[in-house]
């Protein structure tokens, strides 16, 4: 019987069927659902870790302890976990160890477009790339065989279109794995120069053995077509190529993208007149071919940026494009917005009024950078708001630090804001750090975290008391504000900005979506009192709009009665 599975759901199914028992991850689009689906299996102990480095180390420990273990992350999450990645390549495994990394070509929900295949090459770890949900199950199971067979961690590379596309799968039974025996082995698990040097030799030998696997195992396969055009591709890029060129071309479909075969590519090249390499982002397969003297066409005609498609492949190879309707006029954009009743809105409205420099971070609140709030100066990576504010204040001095804040969410604070806050205290700047504590990891769909009071599978957990934590670091200026109370939030932040020493300001309100908050009665506009000044539009609430006669109205089906807008009206017209 066939089922329609999301790619991420299929990876989780592969984990189940492979007998995996430990999964630890940090949420990140497009990888999040793997861990959520894994948690639905009773046999899998799945949990959210504070960040990707921790999650990967949990999986490493579980694998050394003899279990089959797993961790999933988005591409930028692998940057956070890169430290353990490069050394676990040396130690190898006991129980099988697999990491999934989900890239986001086209940046549907990411801050950069990095190509994670570089990590597999850099860390000398085999990497598999499935092209649909069926292969997500197959490759996940195969990854564990390779991991245990070659004594190596294995990376599975996904992309948004694989993770978030549904396609057909067939399910198999779970193969339970007895816990492997743990044996103390200094030379294998304690990486210090004397033991790591021979391990590096082993890693290089392992890569050559894996290359033989890439040449002969059938994971990289040739699909013969009628013409003399050859295409080398992998993952979703392969599906675009196959859709575009059909049986007119022959294909070398790569399932394993590190290490890459050499002889197999030469053998394929001998059967065709012209070879195109079709790969999104960086020219990794192309450079490999060229380095081995195989003439291919790649980034000369295909872009280095963005997502590909069947139309793009057809256009670049055949020069044809389907006819399409031209609507002929500009259509207003529809950017994502903060939800009605979002606890971030009031906080950013207050900050906007203060006119300060905002060192921003990653989360739903990054949307405050867009109009009409436009209240964010920087956004680089998880946790950077706090450490970068310290740097900004070091560069610009005490006066500037009274006109600057860092803003980050509770989950981001736990992920990598805490170390930044310790740095602020230790190295003494008057940095003002605002934590938006909405008790959830909002942007990825409302996952629990160490400040939410709950876990993925284990039920309630103690909430981190960040006020107490800040006190233990040495911070004395600690205040709590309710972001729905715009007036008081504004006054409190203003007072903190004028104080000497660092401040921690906690803006506390549960997420409207994830917190299952019961809405208040909807507000409405008193038409007689409304002066049509538009001050209420500044907060960017999707429930408030301006009519043709410039009068304001509140959509009763959307408003949840948070009351933030009422604080913006000098005339008391919002009731």
């Amino acid at each position, binding site marked *: 019987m*066939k*089922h*329609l599975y*999301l790619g991420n759901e299929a990876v989780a199914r592969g984990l189940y069927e492979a007998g995996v028992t430990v999964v630890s991850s940090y949420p990140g*689009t*497009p990888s*999040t*659902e793997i861990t959520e689906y894994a948690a639905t299996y009773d046999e899998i102990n799945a949990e959210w870790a504070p960040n990707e480095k921790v999650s990967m180390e949990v999986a490493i420990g579980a694998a050394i302890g003899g279990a089959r273990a797993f961790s999933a992350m988005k591409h930028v999450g692998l940057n956070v976990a890169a430290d353990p990645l490069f050394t676990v390549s040396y130690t190898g495994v006991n129980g099988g160890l697999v990491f999934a990394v989900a890239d986001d070509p086209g940046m*549907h*929900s990411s801050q950069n477009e990095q190509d994670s295949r570089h990590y597999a090459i850099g860390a000398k770890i085999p990497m598999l790339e499935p092209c*649909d949900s069926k292969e997500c199950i197959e490759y996940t199971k195969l990854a564990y065989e390779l991991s245990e067979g070659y004594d190596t961690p294995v990376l599975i590379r996904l992309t948004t*279109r694989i993770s*978030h*596309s*549904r*396609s*057909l799968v067939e399910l198999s039974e779970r193969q339970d794995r007895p816990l492997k025996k743990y044996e103390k082995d200094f030379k294998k698990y304690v990486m210090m120069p004397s033991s790591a040097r021979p391990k590096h030799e082993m890693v290089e030998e392992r890569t050559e053995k894996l290359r033989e696997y890439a040449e002969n195992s059938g994971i990289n396969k040739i699909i013969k077509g009628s013409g003399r055009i050859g295409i080398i591709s992998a993952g*979703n890029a392969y*599906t*675009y190529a*196959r*859709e*575009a060129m059909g049986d007119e071309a022959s294909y070398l479909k790569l399932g394993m993208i590190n290490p890459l075969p050499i002889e197999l590519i030469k053998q394929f090249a001998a059967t065709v007149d012209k070879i195109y390499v079709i790969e999104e982002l960086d020219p990794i397969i192309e450079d490999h071919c060229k380095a081995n003297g195989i003439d291919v066409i790649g980034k000369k005609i295909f872009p280095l940026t963005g*997502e590909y*498609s*069947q*139309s*793009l492949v057809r256009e670049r190879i055949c020069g044809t*494009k*389907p*006819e*399409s*309707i031209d*609507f002929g*006029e500009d*259509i*207003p*954009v*529809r*950017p*994502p*917005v*903060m*939800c009605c009743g979002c606890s971030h809105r009031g906080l950013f409205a207050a900050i906007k009024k203060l006119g300060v420099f905002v060192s921003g971070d990653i989360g*739903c609140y990054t*949307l405050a950078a*867009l*109009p*009409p709030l436009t209240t964010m100066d920087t956004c680089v990576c998880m946790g950077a708001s706090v450490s970068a504010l310290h740097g900004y204040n070091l560069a610009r001095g005490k006066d500037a630090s009274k006109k600057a804040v860092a803003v980050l969410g509770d989950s981001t604070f736990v992920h990598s804001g805490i170390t930044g806050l310790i740095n602020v205290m230790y190295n003494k700047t008057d940095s003002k750090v605002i934590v938006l504590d909405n008790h959830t990891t909002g*942007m*990825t*769909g409302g996952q629990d975290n160490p400040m939410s009071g709950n876990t993925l599978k284990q039920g309630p957990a103690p909430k981190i008391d960040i006020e107490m934590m800040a006190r233990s670091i040495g911070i004395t200026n600690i205040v709590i504000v309710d972001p729905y109370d715009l007036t008081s939030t504004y006054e409190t932040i203003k007072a903190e900005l004028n104080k000497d020493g660092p401040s921690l300001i906690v803006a506390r309100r549960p997420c409207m979506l994830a917190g299952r908050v019961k809405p208040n009665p909807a507000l409405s506009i008193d038409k007689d009192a409304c002066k049509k000044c*538009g001050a209420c*539009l500044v907060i*960017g609430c*999707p429930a*408030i*709009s*301006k009519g043709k006669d410039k009068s304001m109205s509140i959509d009763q*089906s959307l408003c949840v009665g948070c009351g933030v807008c009422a604080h913006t009206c000098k005339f008391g017209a919002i009731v």
Partner: protein
Amino acid sequence: MTKNIMIVGVGGQGTLLTGKILGNALLAMGYDVKVSEVHGMAQRGGAVVTYVRYGKEVFSPVINEGEADIILAFEQLEAARWLSYLKKDGCIVINMQRINPMPVITGVAEYPQDLLDKIKSMANEVIAEDALAIAKQAGNIKAVNVSLLGVAAKKLDIDYDVWVETIKKVVPAKFVDLNLKAFELGCGV
């Protein structure tokens, strides 16, 4: 021959569930199916699109400009936004609802006038219905998605029984009756 259906709308309108129902119904009809969704950032009230492709063997999960046989548009502005994806001989099924995007709310842009007439003058076939009214009649405006799916059902080669069984399977138990009613009312208009 692979057929292409797009579901476009505003984050929160239930396009994901619609895609899941449609994909599972096509699977039950014996087709190879791929459904590509948008999660994350775009769900916060942004423009969303789901691609559904079916046939003997489907490779790519996405649909490009000029390739869609059918577009289900949950909102007028989104119908216009994605119109270039419709095939010359394609059909667009539009819910007549209007939802103002942020630039319109703040007065930076205007919601275009006479969208429906313009679309009718350009597209081969247009079916426009007030799916929100159908959903209200079924008992809950949240069923607007399945109401529009009912309207579009006449353009899709899926047996009525298969629709019913799929809705029962895919929709959470407590909303099955509501969605079956919305679907049936949608089919009837």
